[in-house]
């Protein structure tokens, strides 16, 4: 993907890994960062492409450690081509795709297929996640070492938790020397059962089966115990409850090898959105109630949960933001709430949603960039360090964004095949201007 020279002039360069935050220019040559700071005129090659970033933010490209690209098997929901274009539009230069494909990513052949398809179709980097268990069935360990050698960056049976505590123990133990995390979707099925939204008065009011917070917290507590028992490398996928935060704090306090992520939707919208009132206070349902675009697993929770998650992210306890981008075809959402597919199409709204925390004064812009670059790289391990920095010599994966750009969410303009977002028609403040992967511009916002 290496290409000619590129100069990004006079942006606010935020490189949290190096504590660098100042107006500067970035020179890219041969796909790598060449100079960050003052770029002397005689260093600028002839024919160098110039991007004026005055008033804009320049940072390492975002890394999403949790998304669903649906290929192979569910190409009607998303493909590597459309999913990576969506990622580029959202400022992501690396996407880790979950293995709940068909066939699932539980052997090296499927990893190879995804890598080949990515070479042909992807506009950003694609890093496959491998299954913990064969066929994602939760019964027997997948060939984890072979998967790691083939290039998976994490293990997960996402879509489902690893239900069996002993299998989880064995997986953590067996993979401890492989240096990559097991990402578990923590949800105790005996408690979540047929739930479709957060348990609480809104679920009661709407007559929808609820998922208690205890379903998530019980399995988080279990997995933390198992991480302690085995010395394994545990990563908690998309935590959503206020009770998950102290469990994580305790685990980290003990020095366990445990990390966690949170999704933009769990940081910004609540179960009130299921009432169809877009979060506006209302005790009753509107005709727009049962908005299936709000159905996501784990579910949208209450305001006190959102508060706790924001605090946890702001103070660095929660390592990173991950999208859990889960695109679906329209038909799977044009049914009753009980029958609708779980999932939100997030890649293209992740930055605008997350920036709400910055605009509301809940965290600094620098911290937010950290949670979308350095944080995810820390979860994945040292091989990702060079993708999360603008240090000269590293690959030029860069995002240029305007933190004040206001735009209306119009899913028909999404690059993703998944138009399923509860944010349809809302206005977000903050949008990507340019995304660069290995020195090559892969997305430019025509409207900015």
């Amino acid at each position, binding site marked *: 993907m290496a290409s000619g020279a590129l100069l990004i002039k006079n942006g606010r360069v935020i490189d949290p890994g190096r504590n660098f935050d100042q107006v500067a220019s970035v020179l890219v040559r041969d796909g790598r960062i060449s100079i960050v700071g003052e770029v002397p005129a005689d260093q600028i090659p002839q024919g160098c492409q110039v991007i004026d970033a005055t008033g804009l933010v320049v940072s390492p490209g975002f890394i999403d450690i949790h998304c669903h690209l649906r290929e192979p098997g569910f190409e009607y929901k998303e493909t590597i081509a459309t999913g990576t274009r969506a990622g580029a539009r959202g400022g992501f230069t690396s996407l880790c795709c979950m293995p709940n494909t068909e066939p699932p990513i539980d052997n090296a052949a499927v990893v190879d297929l995804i890598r080949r398809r990515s070479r042909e179709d992807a506009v950003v980097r694609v890093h496959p996640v491998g299954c913990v268990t064969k066929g994602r069935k939760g019964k027997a360990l997948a060939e984890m070492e072979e998967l790691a050698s083939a290039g998976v960056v994490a293990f997960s049976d996402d879509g489902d938790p690893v239900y069996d505590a002993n299998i989880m123990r064995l997986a953590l133990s067996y993979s401890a020397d492989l240096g990559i995390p097991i990402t578990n979707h923590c949800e105790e099925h005996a408690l979540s059962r047929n739930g479709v939204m957060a348990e*609480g008065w809104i679920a009661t009011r709407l*007559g929808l089966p609820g998922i*208690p917070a205890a379903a998530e917290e019980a399995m988080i507590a279990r997995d933390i115990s198992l991480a302690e028992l085995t010395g394994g490398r545990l990563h908690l996928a998309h935590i959503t409850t206020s009770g998950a935060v102290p469990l994580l704090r305790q685990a980290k306090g003990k020095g366990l090898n445990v990390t966690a992520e949170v999704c933009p939707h769990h940081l910004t919208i609540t179960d009130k959105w299921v009432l*169809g009132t877009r979060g506006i206070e209302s005790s009753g349902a509107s005709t727009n109630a049962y908005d299936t675009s709000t159905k996501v697993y784990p579910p949208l929770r209450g305001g006190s949960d959102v508060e706790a998650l924001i605090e946890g992210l702001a103070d660095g306890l929660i390592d990173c933001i991950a999208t859990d981008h889960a695109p679906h075809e329209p038909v799977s959402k044009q049914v009753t709430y009980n029958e609708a597919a779980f999932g939100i199409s997030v890649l293209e709204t992740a930055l605008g949603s997350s920036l709400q925390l910055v605009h509301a004064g809940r965290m600094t812009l620098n911290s937010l960039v950290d949670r979308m670059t350095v944080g995810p790289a820390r979860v994945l391990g040292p091989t990702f360090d060079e993708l999360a920095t603008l240090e000269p010599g590293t690959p030029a994966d860069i995002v240029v964004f305007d933190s004040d750009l206001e735009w209306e969410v119009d899913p028909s303009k999404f690059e993703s095949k998944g138009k399923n977002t509860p944010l349809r028609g809302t206005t977000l403040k903050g949008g990507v201007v340019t995304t660069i992967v290995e020195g090559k511009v892969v997305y430019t916002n025509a409207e900015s």
Partner: protein
Amino acid sequence: MSTSQAIETASLVVPTDSPHLPPRKHVLDLDDFSSEEILAVIESAKGMAEVLGRDIKKVPTLRGRVVVTLFYESSTRTRISFEEAGKVLSADVINMTASASSVEKGESLLNTGLTLQAMGVDVIVVRHAYSGAPYLLAQQLDRVGIINAGDGIHAHPTQALLDLYTVQDKLGSISGLKVVIVGDVLHSRVARSNIWGFSKMGAKVVICGPATLLPLDLLHRNGGDALPEELASIEVVTDLDLAIQDADVVMALRLQSERQDAGFLPSLREYIRRWQVTDERLAKAKPGALVMHPGPMNEGIEISSSIAHGGNSVIEEQVTNGVAIRMALLYQLCTGPK
């Protein structure tokens, strides 16, 4: 008087006697009914009840209108009640059940609704096993009125309106009454709509039953976000002997036998012992308290036979009033805006 003369005479009655019913497109739940509108529907139902009391129960009010009852769950009284309501008003009523239609071939609810709309149907009365199904139709169909005849465990607004009508008719007013709803509130759409309706009309609602069959968040045990005012005012009491004291209305809910299998109850025997509405318990309520049941009853489980058929029971009146309420709603929707 010949039949045609009777119809001609009667035709004048319904429209002119009707109170000022506000225009309405759908009946999804009682959330969007004001107390004034509830009273107007009850008033309108009284006029309809007068038609039902005639020898010849037929008025031409909705002649030329098409009403479809689209039932994805089995029902006897609600479907027949709607059918009778439509026919008395001279609407053409078409009954569609899931087992005898393209639904069996896998047609989605939405496509079924779109098909019915394309056929020019005026009102779809829908019952569905999943909460919110009528909302899907209301959101996606723009030329058809939707009446919720029971959706999952969410709402049964016409049942609640007929219950409000029955109480108003028997006790004169609803405001200030103590209404005890006892049984499987967690899985009851009747309870949800009645909680909303009675609260809105100023009654004090007490819900009672095993803690496993009451919504946890109404017990204030989930520690989550604050409840909205309407729900916070609901009292939750697990002991029926306490709950029933000085009650004006006692409503027993149907207990599905599968609740026992799913572990919500140790046994039916224990349920009967603690939560059956009996003569002994009813003696603690106000004299003349009304006993209600949405049906179908499990006599001997949630309600004793002597109570079900005793002097306090208004269970048969509920059924009669149901037809009148549904006539009023069909009239309101068919004559409202499109």
